[in-house]
């Protein structure tokens, strides 16, 4: 088991190098260091000398990948790529082009992100499973059909509508919670309720429908029939047997997103002014702060790969038949 994990982690390294190189190339294809300098130096009265100096200060005056005029290994090492991107592998994110310590900002902004992503995830799964079980319980009835149609309808609504609608209805018309903002500690709760409600509702449709099929698959299996024949009530069958077994595909499906909860939600965070990592990324794209973008991409990739490894481990934990090769 441990050997397997070690192997998976080593396998992740070339992937991360690939990710790093790809983001690097993509970003610099779009954005020359000159552009970055101009954006940071502002609009009024910017001289070419100031741009040259800005690049020198931040090491962006070097060639991107290959430094021809340097001797030996420095041809490869004295470049923007090596100077700026390789440190990521030890999670040294460096400083943003504005001069702030990115690692610190990430550690600060991670918590607001988690504070909405985690409740949405947990409450969401709970609600989705409950609804899916209800539908499975009333399978074939009118309730089931209309429930499924409702799910499809809910899936067909753009997430932007949920946000706009939720904000307008609950915050503006009913004045139940603040429209947007964030605070530290327990004061954060009143800001979080609305985005969490919106987040949960917008996720109900698709997942409920999927989980319903998981339940139905289990319900038609032989052991369930046996249990039912023994005279167990339908509810008990559902909770004792079906739920337990249907949880396996549900859990293995969601494990991969758990690490990514850290990186937050782009839309919710910017609509509700929550200072998390999602809005951090969006801001960085808008202000073309390459250092932050690079850090966030790297972080996202690492978390995704962790998610994949976790998924594999979960498989073996819930199903002993799966063996590591």
């Amino acid at each position, binding site marked *: 088991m441990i050997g397997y994990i070690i192997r998976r982690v080593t396998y992740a390294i070339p992937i991360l190098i690939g990710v790093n190189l790809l983001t690097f190339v993509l970003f610099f294809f779009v*954005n020359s260091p000159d*552009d970055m300098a*101009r*954006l*940071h*130096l*502002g*609009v*009024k*009265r*910017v*001289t*070419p000398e*100031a741009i040259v*100096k800005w690049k020198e*200060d*931040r*090491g962006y005056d070097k060639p991107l990948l290959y430094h021809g005029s340097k001797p030996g290994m420095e041809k490869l090492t004295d470049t923007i790529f090596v100077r700026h991107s390789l440190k990521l592998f030890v999670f040294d994110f460096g*400083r943003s082009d*504005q*001069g*702030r*310590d990115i690692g*610190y*900002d990430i550690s*600060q*902004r991670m918590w607001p992100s988690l504070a909405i992503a985690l409740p949405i995830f947990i409450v969401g799964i709970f609600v989705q499973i409950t609804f899916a079980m*209800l539908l499975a*319980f*009333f399978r074939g*009835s009118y*309730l089931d059909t209309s429930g499924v149609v409702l799910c499809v309808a809910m899936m067909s609504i753009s997430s932007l509508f949920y946000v706009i609608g939720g*904000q307008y209805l609950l*915050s*503006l*018309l*009913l*004045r*139940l*919670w*603040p*429209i*947007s*903002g964030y*605070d530290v500690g*327990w004061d954060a*709760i*009143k*800001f979080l309720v609305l985005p969490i409600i919106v987040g949960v509702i917008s996720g109900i449709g698709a997942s409920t429908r999927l989980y319903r099929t998981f339940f139905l698959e289990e319900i038609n299996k032989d052991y369930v029939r046996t249990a039912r024949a023994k005279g167990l*009530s*339908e509810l008990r069958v559902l909770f004792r047997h079906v739920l337990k077994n249907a949880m396996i595909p549900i859990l293995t499906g969601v494990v991969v997103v758990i690490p990514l909860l850290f990186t937050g939600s782009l839309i919710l965070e*910017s*609509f*509700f*002014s929550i*200072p998390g990592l999602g*809005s951090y990324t969006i*801001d960085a794209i808008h*202000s*073309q702060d390459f250092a932050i973008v690079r850090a966030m991409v790297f972080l996202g990739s690492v978390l995704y790969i962790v998610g994949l490894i976790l998924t594999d481990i979960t498989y073996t934990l819930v199903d002993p038949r799966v063996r590591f090769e």
Partner: protein
Amino acid sequence: MKRPDAIRILLLAISFFASSAAAASWNNPYPEEDAGKNILYSAFRERPKTFDPARSYSSNEYLFIAQIYEPPFQYHYLKRPYTLIPLTAESVPMPIYLDKQGHRLPRDASPEAIAFSVYEIRIRPGILYQPHPAFARDADGRYLYHDLSPRDIEGLRAIGDFPHTGTRELVAADYVYQIKRLAHPKLHSPILSVMNDYIVGMKEYATTLKQAHDEIAVGRDSGVYLDLSKFPLAGAEAVDRYSYRVKLHGKYPQLLYWMAMPFFAPMAPEVDRFFSQPGMADKNITLDWYPVGSGAYTLTVNNPNRQMVMERNPNYHEESYPTEGEPGDGPSGLLLDAGQRLPFIDKVIFNLDKESIPRWNKFLQGYYDRSGVQPEGFDQAIRFTSEGDTDVSDTMKEKGIRLLTSVAASTYYLGFNMLDPVVGGYTERARKLRQAISIAVDFEEQITIFENGRGIAAQGPLAPGIFGYREGRAGINPYVYDWAEGKPRRKPIEYARQLLKEAGYPDGVNAATGNSLSINYETPAIGPERKAQLDWMLKQFKKLGIQLVVRATDYNRFQEKMRKGDAQIFDWGWNADYPDPENFLFLLYGPNKKVGENGENASNYDNPAFNRLFERMKNMENTPERQAIIDQMIDIARRDAPWIWGMHPKQFLLEHAWMSNTKPHNMANNTLKYVRLDPVKREELRAAWNRPVIWPVALVLGVLAAGALPAIVTYRRKERARRR
């Protein structure tokens, strides 16, 4: 161990709901304990880039640092036209003019004879800096935090982590130190290129500093302290403890305006030294984030991810509310606090709020004290009186909201690239084409639709309130407007079509080739929100039969095209640095071209006659002679039409009934100290406006519960059937 935690969370949740149910307003975004305090609430949209007074050059940064750093002069809060008054200085000095040999010249000497002007500024003794760790000393008078080891720095996160603070008297040398910082090789001050031309020895000084810096830095990029006091600068020197002298090449009366901006605020060498210690930058403890000044407020929390807080400076020097203003200021209550000690508000909290809708709605709910008017909320907020003036709407009046308007010292325009073979050039054809387009693009309509009347259509480059601007009939642009019934009226579109025909494009078709005229329009507007405006712009050109190709690009590409001169028509604008016509007219001065010269003349307009007049006008005092020259210049520019003179935006500021002493000022930024608020009244009104509406929620829950009933019935029946 799990159980106590769970119980604690449960209890907290219960107490939260209980407390929020008890409170009148659930949607209050601020902590309960801050209720009733003398705190002003505001919002910021994006994190400011820097608070270093040598670098900062944008209004969202000035909003903060103008309250903290004190340059020698400031603008009078109430008087119009804008008047400079001393802030830390004793008086606004008159320059001494010298000739090449250093002989003193009379005050009315001709500009050509003046080789140098010298300003001697005397500051008031006894002004103290805000408490700051950089000034903290031990019993022996040694600085506590000037030689921090990496171990000392390790545990730090913010400026508040230093236990001791100190202060020091403001001296003239601090002002000189800051002027020297403008040339610092690592700071890239945006005004260095301007000051190079004026301050004696500045250019050479920058080179000296660069060399000196490279010697000590040897490859390090932060944590290098370059003691500027050791390097004398000919154009700026301290005369004694309280006075310093600035020496300029030639005559440059605009310097005094620059000296009312944070670029010329004092910087204590200790502070620079403190922040330059190795390792501080890695902890985000830099001058970019923690300003240190003598102003009315200090920045105590700087978390650009969420919140910035300014608090009253305990060491603030004696300054009182102005006792005189414009004639109308007394009746409108602006002089009620005359002579009172500043500042009035204890604390100002800025919260990060990016989206405009939540910001606007929070203002309406009373959670922000003031708001600019969003175009979206405009109809809700504003109504027009029968005279065409604006006032707040009745619903807002009931809430006691007041509207303050002022025309900003800015201009937004559509520029023609004068280097372009089609729209540019100084031939009669090109001129007529530009004039025709200028008539067709109906900025009055643009202002009504997209700005909701928050602006006035421009007649020329000068914004109202600037010397040289002419009101009324004399001020209209005769190439685009007629004077009718006491106001300017845009010439009819038929006239524009006629001009276009004369230019060789009847109905927008090139008479020579038969191709329809197609013009590229460059704009940095890439968001879908701007689609309506782009559509509108297409409509304007269609009136003449001209095809407009919208090239919406991201900001960098846009800038690049402007630098290369690839544009034909483009969006552009200018916010004045100081209230002098020179600051607008230099935008059309040939040697200040964008292409090649990297100047601010974005349309690359270069008319020798205009250039000559500009050189004469720029250093003059505001005399009738100067007015005459400006009139000539503006007429030349109007005829050549290098810009479609767009609009001067009007700033609409709304404030709640509990605010007082607000008067919009387009030049001054250090205005927070004058403003007053009434927290008790605010508390009452907020509570009245924010009662939650709960019945719909109860209704929905009820319906859901009712909906569950049939399900339960079905289940029961099913179970029974199975048992049977």
